[in-house]
């Protein structure tokens, strides 16, 4: 293979060591879902979340890479379908990186199969007048589709180095590193395009791309067909949900939680900690703080590690598998009509499903939606009705132990409530929804290494995020209990909690925990249910209120960050009364119709 440096580096610049005030800043730019984040990881050794659907990266990630003797700063950007005209918020993030001189070299990452689309973006990139390298990634998939690209012809047409890679295997990375020193400005393109980029892109694509004509229908394509066809797609969706329930709700929330909570913590750790504290600390106050009813160990750590962690881990594992398979966007085909009634379109299924993992992250992902109205409605619905994995954990743990009907009732009520609020919001919130146009990624076999890395990182993130809050929350409750405030609040909230919602008075304390984190509150309910202090009907009412309740602190802060304090407070102001009203309604309906679980 010819060395690209020889052809493209300008003579005044040594490709190896240049003197700069800062490291060379290299931006990875390209269409969504072409593997920019995989390439980023290959170059920097830093992991950026990788999935098989557009919109995984919605903010910029930076990392350092050593290229030759030079340190480069690599910038992973959100995928763009266009850099011109009406941009979604994540596309705007990328455009700013290019327009504000935050990058000195562009690595245009492309799916080797879609040359024409790639060239349309090249034409837009030319306007930024930055040295550019074109990376044709996923070259193996292109070949499997019978597509062969004439790299030399393409280099000649564009006037920049072109490198073929299979980033997931690390193939072609040597070529890319060599080329990094030698990007050239897309001058030839700018000259050719000015007439009509569409015509130019088609001509160049036709010249540089050959098709062998052999197209093997692999199992992936057969599955893709089955997944999008309504007759087979709906059963596949139901089976997928059921498998998720078995893995997360039964294996995680019942088996693993039982193992950790009853055996590890209940039979060994907590009694052992209580004995150790009693032996070594003579003060009853400190003993209570650590191992009392609101103890940091007996309550805070037990909730976080024994009740919530197993479910979060099992959920993230299966969720990672789904993400990487490319299946999730296909669900959008079935849900588009429903989302349209709520002022959104099928694309909203991505943040909603992501919300089942973590509402905080999902709130940021609403950037992939096109209009302000859509982002606002999606954020409202996430805050209102989408339980995050930690909360799902406790819901499944409690209701799974009561009956399947209880579980179906809860999700039915929450979904109906979301639909109603969405339907009204679509009519009240000013603005427009955008049309549903969604690219479906190819179905791929998930790489277990990536799923494992992603799961571990997310679990670690959960521990870092949730455990401190669980401990702070427990401490807060402990103090409230000590100064008598807990009894006071419980008494004050009693008409609401016991009267309107028909719940035991102790639930008031649990709802206070729910203000901090919904899952923390739900874990409190889990313990109440375990001690048989909640009847089936009470569990459904309490969990419905908790699910519709205000989001956790981190989620609230993210809403404020994305939409401002006013909107954040407005969302809480809308969501809280809805939660309590729905709970009250449910409680009375159960009584009137004599429903028991």
């Amino acid at each position: 293979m010819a060395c690209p440096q020889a052809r493209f580096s300008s003579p005044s610049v040594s490709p190896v060591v240049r003197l700069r005030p800062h490291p060379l800043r290299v931006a990875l730019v390209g269409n969504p879902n072409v593997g920019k984040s995989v390439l980023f990881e290959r170059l920097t050794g830093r992991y950026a979340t990788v999935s098989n659907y557009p919109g995984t990266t919605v903010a910029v990630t930076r990392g350092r890479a050593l290229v030759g003797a030079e340190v480069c700063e690599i910038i992973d950007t959100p995928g763009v379908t266009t850099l011109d005209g009406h941009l979604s918020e994540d596309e705007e993030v990328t455009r700013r990186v290019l327009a504000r001189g935050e990058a000195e070299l562009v690595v245009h990452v492309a799916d080797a199969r879609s040359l024409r689309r790639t060239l349309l973006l090249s034409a837009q990139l030319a306007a930024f007048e930055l040295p550019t390298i074109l990376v044709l990634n996923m070259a193996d998939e292109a070949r499997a589709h019978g597509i062969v690209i004439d790299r030399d012809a393409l280099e000649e047409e564009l006037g920049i180095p072109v490198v073929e890679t299979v980033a997931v295997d690390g193939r072609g990375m040597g070529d890319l590193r060599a080329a990094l020193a030698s990007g050239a400005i897309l001058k030839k393109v700018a000259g050719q395009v000015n007439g009509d980029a569409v015509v130019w892109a088609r001509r160049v694509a036709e010249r540089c791309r050959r098709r062998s004509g052999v197209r093997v229908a692999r199992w992936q394509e057969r599955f893709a067909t089955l997944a999008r066809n309504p007759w087979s797609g709906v059963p596949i969706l139901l089976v997928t949900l059921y498998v998720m329930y078995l893995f997360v709700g039964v294996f995680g929330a019942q088996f693993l939680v039982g193992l950790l909570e009853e055996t590890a913590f209940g039979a060994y750790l907590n009694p052992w900690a209580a004995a150790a504290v009693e032996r070594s600390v003579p003060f009853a106050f400190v003993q209570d703080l650590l191992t009392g009813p609101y103890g940091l160990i007996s309550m805070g750590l037990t909730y976080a590690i024994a009740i919530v962690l197993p479910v979060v881990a099992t959920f993230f594992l299966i969720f990672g598998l789904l993400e990487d398979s490319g299946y999730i966007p296909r669900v959008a085909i079935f849900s588009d009509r429903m989302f349209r009634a709520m002022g959104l379109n099928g694309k909203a299924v991505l943040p909603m499903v992501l919300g089942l993992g973590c509402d905080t992250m999902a709130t940021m992902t609403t950037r992939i939606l096109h209009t302000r109205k859509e982002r606002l409605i999606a954020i409202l619905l996430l805050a209102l009705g989408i339980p995050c994995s930690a909360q799902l954990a406790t819901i499944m743990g409690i209701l799974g132990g009561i009956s399947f009907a209880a579980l179906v009732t809860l999700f039915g009520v929450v979904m109906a409530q979301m639909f109603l609020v969405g339907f009204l919001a679509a009519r009240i919130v000013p603005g427009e929804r955008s049309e549903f146009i969604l690219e479906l990624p190819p179905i791929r076999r998930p790489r277990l290494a990536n799923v494992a890395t992603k799961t571990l990182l997310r679990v670690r993130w959960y521990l870092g995020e949730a455990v401190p809050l669980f401990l702070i929350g427990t401490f807060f409750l402990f103090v409230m209990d000590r100064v008598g405030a807990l009894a006071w609040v419980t008494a004050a909230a009693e008409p609401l909690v016991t009267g309107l919602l028909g719940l035991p008075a102790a639930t008031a304390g649990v709802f206070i925990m729910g203000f901090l984190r919904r899952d923390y509150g739900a874990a409190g309910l889990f313990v109440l249910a375990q001690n048989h202090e909640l009847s089936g009907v009470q569990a459904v009412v309490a969990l419905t209120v908790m699910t519709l309740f205000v989001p956790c602190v981190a989620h609230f802060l993210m809403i404020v960050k994305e939409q401002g304090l006013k909107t954040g407070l407005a969302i809480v102001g809308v969501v809280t009364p809805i939660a309590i009203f729905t709970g009250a309604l449910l409680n009375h309906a159960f009584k009137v119709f004599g429903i028991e679980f």
Partner: protein
Amino acid sequence: MRSRSSASNSEAGGAPRLSSLRAGARGVIRGVVPDANGRVERLAALGVTAGASIEVLQTFPGVVFRCDETELAIEPAVARAILVDES
């Protein structure tokens, strides 16, 4: 509704819409009826431009079609705005 769509149909020289094609049909894009929200640009960025060849994969509940190597799902209103010469 009908009169409006037939009016823009005649403007476009009577080319059939993507929405009228059955699953399995192939064709070449003739153009996209513009709207105020950049529909033409959004589709163009995905490769749906005049001259691109397409294959309809599915028509219900949404339209799914392949354009080059890109598989796209769109709502019926968008399918009605894409003019296609069936081949």
